[in-house]
């Protein structure tokens, strides 16, 4: 083949390849599957490749085994992983704006301790627990986030008891000063007292309020 013919062939190959390449990228772009096959999470400790097939085949897991607690109650389909576990590596704050995250499910169903999630969020304090008050404010304005007081009563107090930390169930005054203690007793204690038939109940005002 002469040099001239080689050059012509070269031009032809270049034009055809460019045309095929441009057409392939524009007409038949790579489309994402309807359901995620594998998901790459960029975690603090490195990238983690999550393979749905391995979890369903090797571990015999059904979709709902993992996706059950995140349903919004309106859709039969499980929520996308990215609804909570963001791909860009940023943690969604606990009890985020949609309130999907459920502490109770994660602690009871998955056996997670608080510190397994709340371990390294404090800037400049590696390994330190995140202060509860960072999320649970007195009034956050977000119905999905419990107030500091409700969070402690519903979620923290059990761990405090187990770990011997203060305040516990018998140390109301640890938080509730005399004035607050009255409010606490009236709002929260009396119901249990009634149920257990112990201590001052609703009909025993005089036990505390003497003449």
């Amino acid at each position, binding site marked *: 083949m002469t040099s001239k*013919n080689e*050059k012509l*062939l070269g031009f032809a190959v*270049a034009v055809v390849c460019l045309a*095929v*390449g441009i057409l392939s990228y524009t007409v038949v772009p790579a489309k994402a599957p309807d359901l995620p096959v*594998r998901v790459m999470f960029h975690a603090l400790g490195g990238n983690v490749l999550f393979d749905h097939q391995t979890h369903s085949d090797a571990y015999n897991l059904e979709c709902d085994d993992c996706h059950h607690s995140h349903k919004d109650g309106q859709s039969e389909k499980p929520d996308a992983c990215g609804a909570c576990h963001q791909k860009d590596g940023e943690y969604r704050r606990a009890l985020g704006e949609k309130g999907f995250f459920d502490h109770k499910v994660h602690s009871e169903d998955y056996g997670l301790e608080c510190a397994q999630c709340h371990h390294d969020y404090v800037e400049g304090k590696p390994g330190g627990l995140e202060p509860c008050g960072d999320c649970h404010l007195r009034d956050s304005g977000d119905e999905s986030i419990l107030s500091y007081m409700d969070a402690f009563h519903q979620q923290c107090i059990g761990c405090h008891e187990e770990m011997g930390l203060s305040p516990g169930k018998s140390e109301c005054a640890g938080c509730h000063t005399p004035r607050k203690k009255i409010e606490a007793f009236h709002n929260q204690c009396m119901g249990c007292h009634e149920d257990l038939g112990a201590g001052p109940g609703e009909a025993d005002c005089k036990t505390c309020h003497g003449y």
Partner: protein
Amino acid sequence: MSATPKLTVSYAPFWHNGSRISKKSCNIFMASLLAVVPGVYQYGVPALGVVALSVGSAMMWEIIMNILTRRPISIGDGNAAVIGMIFAMLLPATAPWWIVVIGTCIAIVIGKHIYGGIGGNPFNPVMLAIAILMLSWGKILDFNAALASYAFNFNAVYPLTLMKSFGASAVGGISLKDLLMGRQIGGIGATCGIGLIAGGIYLMLRGYIRWEIALSFLAGVGVTALCFNKVNPVYAGPGIHLLTGYTLVGAFYLITEDSSSPVNFIPMMIYGAGAGILTVLIRNIGAHVDGVVFAILIANLINPLVDKIRPKTIGEVITHA
């Protein structure tokens, strides 16, 4: 009469043996299809797009550089097409178009033409391009992330990542036969072991690549991996190292590039084996998942030095003629 020493090689007339660069390029191009076609079959149209755009854009950059440097149009020799094809072999099928175009630009402009064109480049142009892309846009060349949307009927985790993160036990279940048949994820033309080996054997038998370099590279990888494995079984054996990542495509299409490799027997053996040893060192105790790219670039660096080990010059130096 001039007293300048002159080198007498032989006497005229000379006879051209008929070999042409275009013929060599055509053979390498065709041989590479043995590995590329299975890759396109596996990944579909997106892979075809990457390959076509890579070849086309490499030739386009060649023409542009020919015009800018006022040199004859050289796409007829097929070298740019081969660079584009080999570059595409290393990319994931989901590589975005701009990565392909930038990569071929680096390979042709920086890797080849800045040094004067074909035959003048000290580094393999494709290796230079892929190394710059790896350092600049590493996530795009992360095969696990890039191919996450593909469903396969095999364990679709990049074997070298498994090996790097979890040791030999993690890749213990992967059969070498599967790797040979391309049942692994990776570059479009870097996974089908049987196609790469067939193409490599053809090119070696025809003399288009030097068997000394290709085989010494594979021997370097195999022996080093075996040593690591024998000393500490946490490191994978030679089979996995030889059939995963860029090892085979490196042995037959990358390290054998003419301009950046030596021409004498002993230098070729040192060059190939050295790159093979470096590959496994980088994989096992280095920072990168695959060591082929940087191993070959480092070998390119030592090429001029090792090529000084050569036989006595043929001919004689005379002081008068």
